[in-house]
């Protein structure tokens, strides 16, 4: 029972442009929700997932800041950073802390505040996640990196011009059913085909919008919870993190995501599951091309054929492997380092049967994956609905 680490509470803010709300306030709202959802469990340790606050808000030391502002003065508190994978990485640190036996209740908060700056500040901050000396110095950005991969992928695998349309179309369809999503309107494949270019061939629907948001989960051991706990439990059955060569140009084959593959394999092994048992997959669709490459890395599609899963409806809510079930990064929005925690919140809600209009029927096993850059970091968790009596 000691290895039974569960998500006992979840909370989130809507994703969007929260001009009036500060970073500390966003974090506070999400964690307040999570604690309430967990029946008032008080955390002993806080793990903050954040990617860019030292640059965007001139604010580091978020552990103390958020513990302080939220009324948990005194508790252990640190920031965990792994670029876009910060959320998954902080979730894993919280999991390891509870598993160690040194922490009974851990609070994981992901928070990102993009709208504290305007103009070139956002791209400048995002570029710090690349190899500063050999990538960022050339003016390359995360978006253009994705465009480089997308062009090469389409070239090598003969993907038609609108071949990746299925990813944003699915995401937006699902975003319509998520009250916390930034975009809540479905789009058509024709809209995709006519969309303005961001960085050719990557168009505005191929890139998830950077936005403000915070999400939080409370982790604890199942045996510490009262017997009359107010809602179904979700167990972390598998957890794994892996890294890859940071710079795209250093990789033997840029069109594969070996860190994603490795973290999926380890997480499934820890959970004692096969990928066929996974009921839905929250991938890290910061860019459409990442969704395709992640499906391939996870073994759900062969090399060069991940995009077909979107084309063929496999990833739709009623498909064989629903993905981005609450809108994914594309439609829910991409609040940077908070994204991985949003995935945990959304997957836990689904597994509890709280997916609302987007409920994945009978979902028992979820896989969530948080990527830093083009999977230079990949953190994968397998979550499981705990059946009564287990």
């Amino acid at each position, binding site marked *: 029972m000691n290895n039974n680490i569960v998500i006992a509470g979840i909370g989130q803010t809507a994703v969007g442009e929260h001009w009036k709300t500060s970073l500390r306030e966003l974090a506070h709202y999400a964690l307040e929700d999570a604690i309430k959802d967990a029946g008032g469990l008080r955390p002993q340790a806080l793990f903050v997932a954040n990617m860019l606050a030292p640059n965007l808000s001139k604010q580091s030391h978020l552990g103390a800041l958020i513990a302080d502002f939220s009324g948990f003065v005194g508790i252990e508190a640190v920031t965990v950073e792994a670029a876009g994978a910060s959320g998954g990485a902080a979730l894993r640190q919280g999991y390891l802390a509870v598993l160690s036996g040194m922490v009974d209740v851990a609070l994981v908060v992901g928070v990102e505040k993009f709208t504290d700056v305007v103009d070139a500040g956002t791209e400048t901050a995002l570029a710090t996640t690349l190899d500063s000396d050999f*990538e960022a*110095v*050339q003016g390359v950005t995360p978006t253009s990196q994705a465009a480089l991969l997308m062009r090469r992928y389409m070239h090598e695998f003969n993907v038609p011009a609108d071949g990746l349309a299925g990813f944003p179309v699915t995401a937006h369809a699902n975003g319509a059913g998520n009250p916390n999503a930034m975009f809540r309107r479905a789009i058509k494949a024709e809209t995709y085909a006519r969309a303005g270019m961001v960085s050719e061939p990557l168009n505005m629907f191929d890139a998830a919008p950077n936005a403000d948001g915070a999400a939080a989960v409370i982790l604890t051991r199942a045996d510490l919870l009262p017997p009359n706990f107010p809602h179904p439990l979700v167990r972390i059955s598998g957890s794994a993190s892996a890294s890859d060569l940071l710079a795209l140009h250093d990789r033997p084959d840029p069109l594969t995501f070996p860190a994603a593959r490795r973290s999926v394999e380890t997480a499934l092994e820890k959970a004692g599951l096969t990928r066929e048992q996974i009921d839905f997959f929250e991938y890290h669709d910061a860019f459409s091309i990442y969704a395709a490459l992640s499906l391939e890395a996870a073994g759900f599609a062969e090399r060069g054929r991940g995009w077909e899963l979107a084309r063929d409806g496999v990833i739709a809510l009623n498909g064989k492997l629903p993905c981005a079930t609450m809108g994914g990064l594309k439609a829910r929005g991409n609040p940077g380092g908070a994204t991985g925690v949003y995935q945990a919140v959304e997957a836990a809600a689904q597994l509890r049967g709280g997916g609302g209009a987007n409920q994945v029927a009978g979902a028992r096993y979820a896989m969530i994956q948080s990527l830093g850059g083009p999977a230079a970091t990949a953190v994968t968790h397998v979550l499981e609905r705990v059946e009564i009596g287990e």
Partner: protein
Amino acid sequence: MEIPRHWRLRKQRYGLVGEVCPHCEAKIFPPRDVCPDCGKEAKTKFSFSGQGEVYSYTTIYNAPSGFEANVPYTVALVKLEEGPLVTAQLTDVAEEEVEIGMPVEMVTRRLHQDGDERGLLVYGYKFRPIGFAAH
């Protein structure tokens, strides 16, 4: 200002100076002292020819600070003839003329301005199509 960082990297930036692994002969750029192919120490200097071809490319319209004046600019992954890929801007060519597989060669150009108007000008490698005259 970041003078020390750019000064430290001047050799790699100006001349595509990398390394060759004395154990397996892999050519390494950027230099990293540990061979990515065989994992052994690789500190022998090696000057790349600067010849290569476009592996992929795209154009940037939303630039980080220091690059605003260059917008739009085209960046590429260039496959050097010695093996490694390198990330670099393309120059002396319009994006619509670029294609995957196009032969290119290295030139030294201004990369960006560090910080504000008083900032350091950073120079380094870019690539241009072979046979194209410089503007």
